[in-house]
């Protein structure tokens, strides 16, 4: 009877999920409530978690709860510590969820709500979650080794090197594009600039408090920091109203970009306790708090999604970025559907805390489901805006014209009516001078979040909510920027250490300064070009980031597939093999189009040639002619970089296939490096608290 009831409930969930998904998919022309999205997501996640994830864990990975994990065997009370599964889940989720799942869906909303939503749902349950879970599993079985180490142990030195280079490259591109998002959010906005700048001294106060004033009192110090942050959001209004002070914080994008670079350099060489660690505490609390608040507000308010299901821009003419629906929606939304970066957390970091293999499904698969849900909420926040307003905020001046009147005429001509008064009104309500051409996704997400929060918790504070949302995005973008620059510095020191051992000493000051400067100039260059690019820079940088991130995901899936085959599980290799094939297809198609397309909004070479011709014919306006040589050089560089990423991807795919073929034809391959079975001695109730 009990079993019958359980089955009935699961059938009900499946039917509800299927109706919600088809309700979203078949809706045409009418506004649709955001509750449909939430229902569809929760049902799809529940069914996938209960059946697919459980099947993978039991049949393919064969998790063994009697086997001691590295955290138990190597317990040292510091980094290897067997930990309660909810705590590990919290750490893992805080580590994987960054600004990516918020920005990607916002940009992809130019195709309408449907393509992005479907990819976020099904990409996650069939691809991203599987990648995270299998990586977590294989690393747990290998003493919590990193992805690069496992690639080189299981596939060969080529795999390890590719993973290392891939990680470094993605870090550079990621930081540049995130820096660009922050710069665009602060451009000519004294309020936002003040609030974001204030997060730096606030983090330092928190750092000093928990290091010297009350050592180890993490929660006390963080509470103080959160209060100061909220005061900084409110205080921004005062700065904005003050005639002289507002000038101090009112800057062009380029100046802000230089400040962001200077900040990144400082953050990489300052001790972690002063800036990086306290900032991370603040951003983690802000992130968890705001995401919860957003979920509550969406469920309370059930706003209508106003964007059409599919827009005409699936033909590749979209204003935010060029390129057709296939493959670009899959490149634009990386985090939230499948993100290679997670493999770096799921190997090396999280396995050191895992107390039992049984928790792998919940932490690996479940953690990614929650991130996918964050992406769905970002999609809702972007699509509850009037489409006209959405495009006015996100379309760069290079596409719709720099005058407001031209921009609204152009956007209205696409069938998304919007007026100058409407935009001015909105900007005034949000406490901003203008909202036209605020590319990068952060401002439009902030407007969307502010209107949801405003309707749910009081209209009167729209400007406060808007700047709160900007601060919330900026604080953890800057955390990723700090942490990324530092990691880049360590990787570079490690690589240079192979040539000159002295450079590898992480505390030798000349090496610290040199490598930090190199890493900052790496991403600083792309940030600089992104800021001076009249088409907004996001158009170029975001696809590059997407390709790099998917390449890393493909490396992780190659390692997992190779290990499955070598473990004699060829017939199940499709579980990681199919997502891998899909990633290789979309990444290669996207890379090919970015390199070879004749469309100047897609192809890097086409754009470079077009600009060269125009420069030679002297038809460019003087401002653009001055920067044209830099833009041309950069377009060539981007094209070669894309080619490099995709070659690296194919190299590792072939390497994996080589290993699999050798294994299947009985030739010797590198042995599996799984650590031997050792029975767990942790007493059940002690682990479970």
């Amino acid at each position, binding site marked *: 009877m009990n079993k019958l009831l359980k089955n009935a409930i699961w059938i009900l969930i499946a039917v509800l999920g299927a109706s919600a998904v088809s309700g979203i998919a078949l809706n045409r022309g009418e506004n649709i409530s955001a509750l449909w999205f939430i229902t569809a997501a929760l049902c799809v996640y529940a069914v996938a978690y209960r059946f697919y994830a459980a099947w993978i864990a039991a049949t393919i990975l064969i998790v063994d709860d009697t086997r001691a994990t590295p955290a138990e065997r190597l*317990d040292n*009370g*510091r*980094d290897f*510590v067997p*930990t*309660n599964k*909810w*705590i590990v889940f*919290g*750490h893992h989720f805080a*580590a*994987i*969820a*960054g*600004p*990516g799942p918020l920005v990607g869906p916002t940009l992809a909303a130019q195709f309408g709500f449907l393509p992005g939503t479907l990819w976020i749902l099904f990409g996650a349950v069939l691809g991203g979650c599987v990648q995270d879970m299998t990586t977590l599993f294989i690393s747990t079985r290998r003493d919590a080794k990193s992805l690069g180490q496992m690639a080189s142990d299981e596939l060969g030195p080529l795999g390890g090197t590719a993973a290392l280079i891939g*990680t470094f490259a993605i870090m550079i591109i*990621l930081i540049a594009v*995130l820096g660009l998002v922050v710069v665009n959010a602060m451009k000519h906005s004294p309020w936002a600039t003040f609030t974001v700048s204030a997060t730096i001294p606030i983090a330092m106060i928190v750092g000093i408090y*928990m*290091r010297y004033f009350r*050592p*180890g*009192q*993490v*929660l006390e110090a*963080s509470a103080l920091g959160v209060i100061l942050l909220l005061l900084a959001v409110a205080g921004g209004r005062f700065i904005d109203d003050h005639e002289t002070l507002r000038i101090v914080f009112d800057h062009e994008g380029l100046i802000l970009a230089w400040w962001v670079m200077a900040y990144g350099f400082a953050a990489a060489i300052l001790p*972690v*306790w002063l800036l*990086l*660690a306290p900032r*991370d*505490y603040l951003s983690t609390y802000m992130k968890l708090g705001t995401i919860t608040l957003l979920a509550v507000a969406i469920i309370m308010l059930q706003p209508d999604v106003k964007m059409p299901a599919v827009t005409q821009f699936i033909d590749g003419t979209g204003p935010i970025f060029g390129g057709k629906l296939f493959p670009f929606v899959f490149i634009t939304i*990386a*985090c939230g559907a499948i*993100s290679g*970066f*997670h493999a*770096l*957390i799921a190997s*090396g*970091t999280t396995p050191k805390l895992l107390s039992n293999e049984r928790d792998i499904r919940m932490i690996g698969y479940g953690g990614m489901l929650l991130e996918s849900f964050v992406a769905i909420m970002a999609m809702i926040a972007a699509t509850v805006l009037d489409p006209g307003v959405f495009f006015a905020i996100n379309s760069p001046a290079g596409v719709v014209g720099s005058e407001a009147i031209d921009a609204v005429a152009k956007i209205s001509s696409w069938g998304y009516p919007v007026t100058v008064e409407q935009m001015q009104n909105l900007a005034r309500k949000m406490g901003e001078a203008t909202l036209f051409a605020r590319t990068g996704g952060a401002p439009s997400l902030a407007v969307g979040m502010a209107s949801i929060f405003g309707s749910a918790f009081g209209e009167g504070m729209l400007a406060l909510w808007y700047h709160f949302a900007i601060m919330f995005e900026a604080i953890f973008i800057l*955390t*990723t920027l700090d*942490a*990324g620059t*530092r*990691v880049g510095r*360590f990787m570079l020191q490690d690589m240079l250490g192979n040539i000159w051992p002295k450079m590898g000493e992480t505390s030798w000051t000349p090496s610290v300064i040199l490598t930090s400067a190199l890493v900052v100039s790496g991403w600083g260059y792309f940030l600089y070009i992104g800021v001076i690019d009249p088409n907004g820079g996001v158009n170029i940088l975001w696809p590059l*980031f997407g390709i790099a*991130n998917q390449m890393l995901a493909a490396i992780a899936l190659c390692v997992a597939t190779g290990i499955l085959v070598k473990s004699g599980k060829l017939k199940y290799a499709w579980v990681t093999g199919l997502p891998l094939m899909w990633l290789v297809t979309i990444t290669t198609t996207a890379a090919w189009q970015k390199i070879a397309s004749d469309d100047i909004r897609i192809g890097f070479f086409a754009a470079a040639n077009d600009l060269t011709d125009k420069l030679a014919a002297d038809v460019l306006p003087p401002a653009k002619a001055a920067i044209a040589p830099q833009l041309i050089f950069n377009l060539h560089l981007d094209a070669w970089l894309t080619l490099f990423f995709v070659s690296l991807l194919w190299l590792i795919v072939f390497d994996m296939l080589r290993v699999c073929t050798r294994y299947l034809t009985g030739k010797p391959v590198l042995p599996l490096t799984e650590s031997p079975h050792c029975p767990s001695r942790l007493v059940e109730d002690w682990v479970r608290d």
Partner: protein
Amino acid sequence: MSGKLKAFWRFVRRLSGDDAYEQYLMHYAQQHQADAGHECHPPLSKIDFFKQWQDAKWNGIKRCC
């Protein structure tokens, strides 16, 4: 109710690392008992422990996109 609140508070403290030093002392006492013959170092002070803990926590890739 108050039991649940207490459990939640313990969860928050554990997640944030607020109780890391207490955990360390517990681990130290356990190790000490298990292996009484080994050479004795007194446990670290709270300040020293926190410094080491913070530096170790931030070594490597800890944040994603």
